[in-house]
C-alpha cells in the first residue's frame, strides 16, 4: 500500500513539474520569426500588422553614453526638464524621449523613491532634483561604465545643461583617447591603397558621431534688439517726448531680461506669439516716429 502511495506521489509530482508554463506548440508553429511589438494597439486581423519579420538584430548600441535623470514627485523643475526634453533642440540633440533608436545617448528617467529602482543609487548622495547623471558607454571605450562623468543637481536650462554635459564628455574623451582609439580603430578618412571593390560602411558603433551634432540642430539665434540710442537725448531734452524715451528704454530692458530668461529655460511672462505681436507694434511705432529720409529711400 505504501509503495502504491509513493508511486502515486511520484506520478503527481512529475505531473506538477510538467504543467506547461510555456506553450511550445505555438513556438514551433511560428518557426523562424521576429515579431516587433511596438507597444501600439494594431488591427490584429491584418497579417502585415500582426507579424513583422525582422530577422536581423538591431544595431549595436553599446557605444552610446548613458544619461539618467532622477526626479522626485511634485518637483516643478523636474517636470520642466521632462517637458523641455520633448521639444528643446539642445536636449534632443543628446536623446529623443521615446525614440531610443534615433537617440545619440541612452536616456532614462527615474523617480527617487521607486523601490524597484532605488538600488541603482546606493553610492550617490542627492543634493537636489532633478539630478542629471552621465556615464560612459557600455562598450568600455571611454573607461569604467560606473564612472560619473557629469552630475548636476537642479535644472540650469536646456542649453546650459546640454553644453555642460558635452563639455564633461569632451574632458572624459580627452583623458582616455588612446584607449578609445585602440577600440574604435583608425579614423574613416584613411588615405592609401584602396581595395578593388566598394566596401560596406562600418557598423554603427564605429561611425556614430563622437559628440552629438549640436550646432546644426539648434534653432538660429534671433538677432539681439538694438539699443535705442535715440532715447537718451530725447529723455535729456525733457518735455512730453521724455516719456517716449523712458518707454523705449524700458522696452529694451524688458526684451533683454526676457531673452536671458529664455536662455535659462525659465518661465516667460509673455509667450512668443504675444511677444511677436508687441514687437511688430513697436516697430510700427519706430517707423512712424522716424520715417526714412528721402536719401535712404533712394539707396533702397
Amino acid at each position: 500500500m505504501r509503495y502504491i502511495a509513493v508511486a502515486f506521489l511520484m506520478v503527481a509530482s512529475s505531473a506538477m513539474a510538467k504543467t506547461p508554463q510555456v506553450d511550445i506548440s505555438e513556438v514551433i508553429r511560428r518557426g523562424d520569426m521576429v515579431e516587433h511589438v511596438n507597444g501600439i494597439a494594431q488591427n490584429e486581423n491584418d497579417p502585415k500588422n500582426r507579424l513583422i519579420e525582422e530577422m536581423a538584430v538591431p544595431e549595436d548600441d553599446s557605444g552610446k553614453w548613458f544619461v539618467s535623470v532622477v526626479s522626485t514627485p511634485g518637483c516643478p523643475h523636474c517636470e520642466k526638464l521632462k517637458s523641455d526634453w520633448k521639444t528643446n533642440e539642445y536636449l534632443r540633440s543628446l536623446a529623443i524621449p521615446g525614440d531610443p533608436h534615433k537617440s545619440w545617448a541612452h536616456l532614462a528617467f527615474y523617480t527617487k523613491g521607486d523601490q524597484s529602482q532605488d538600488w541603482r543609487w546606493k553610492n550617490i548622495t542627492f543634493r537636489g532634483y532633478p539630478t542629471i547623471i552621465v556615464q560612459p558607454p557600455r562598450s568600455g571605450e571611454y573607461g569604467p561604465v560606473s564612472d560619473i562623468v557629469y552630475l548636476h543637481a537642479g535644472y540650469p536650462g536646456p542649453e546650459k545643461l546640454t553644453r555642460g554635459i558635452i563639455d564633461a564628455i569632451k574632458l572624459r574623451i580627452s583623458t582616455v583617447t588612446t584607449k578609445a582609439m585602440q577600440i574604435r580603430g583608425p579614423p574613416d578618412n584613411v588615405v592609401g591603397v584602396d581595395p578593388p571593390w566598394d566596401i560596406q560602411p562600418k557598423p554603427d558603433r564605429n561611425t556614430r558621431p563622437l559628440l552629438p551634432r549640436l550646432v546644426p540642430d539648434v534653432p538660429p539665434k534671433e538677432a539681439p534688439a538694438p539699443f535705442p540710442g535715440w532715447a537718451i537725448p530725447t529723455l535729456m531734452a525733457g518735455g512730453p517726448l521724455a516719456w517716449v524715451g523712458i518707454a523705449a528704454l524700458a522696452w529694451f530692458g524688458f526684451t533683454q531680461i526676457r531673452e536671458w530668461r529664455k536662455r535659462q529655460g525659465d518661465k516667460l511672462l509673455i509667450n512668443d506669439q504675444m511677444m511677436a505681436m508687441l514687437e511688430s507694434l513697436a516697430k510700427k511705432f519706430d517707423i512712424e516716429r522716424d520715417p526714412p529720409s528721402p536719401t535712404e529711400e533712394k539707396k533702397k
Partner: protein
Amino acid sequence: MKHALQIAMLIASMAAFTPAAKTAAYSISNPAFNVPANVREWFRNNFPGDGGSCVQCSIGMCGVDQNIPAASTLLWDTRYGPRERGGSWPGRVAKYCRARGIKIYNVTGKPTWDWMRWAVNTGRGAAIGVGTAHFQTLVGYDNASAKWLVCNNNSPQKIDRYSDKAFRRLHLASGQWCVILDAPPHPVAPVYREWWNTK
C-alpha cells in the same frame, strides 16, 4: 529506513525535472542584467492558484532592469493593467504587451541565438526559454569563462552558469523563443571617482 528511502525517491523524482547548473557568485564586472537578489525575489515563480507564470516572471525582471514599469508590474494589478499570470505563448505575450504599451522583440526559431547574443552584448537582459516548457532570465555571458549566466525564477536568489553546450541543450529543450524589451539598456550603478585626476 523505508521512509528515508521513500523520501529520497520522491526528492529524486522531483529533481529530475530541474536542469543541472553550476551556481557561482556573480563574477563578471559588467553583466547585461544586474538587478539585486532582493528585488529578483519579488519575481519568484510562486503564485498559488494562478499556475506557473515563468514567462511573466522573466519579462518582469527585465522590466525592472530596463526601468519599464508596464513590464515590471506584469504580475500584479496596477495602473499599467491587470495582472497577467499563468502559462504563456508568443501570441499571448504580444497581445498583453500591445495592451500595456510595452515594446518588445518576440523572437522564435533559429534567430533567437543571434538575438540573445545581441541582448547580452548591448547590456540588456532577456526572457528566454531554458529547460522544458520553462522561461528564465538571461543575465549575461561571461567571456572569461565562456559561460552563460541565467537567473531561474524558481530560485531567483542565485545565478546559474551554463557552458555553451549545456545552454544550447536547455534552450532547444524549451523551444527556441525569447522576448527582449525594445528599450535602452540600464547604466550600471554609478560611483564617484576622480577620473579626471590621472596622476
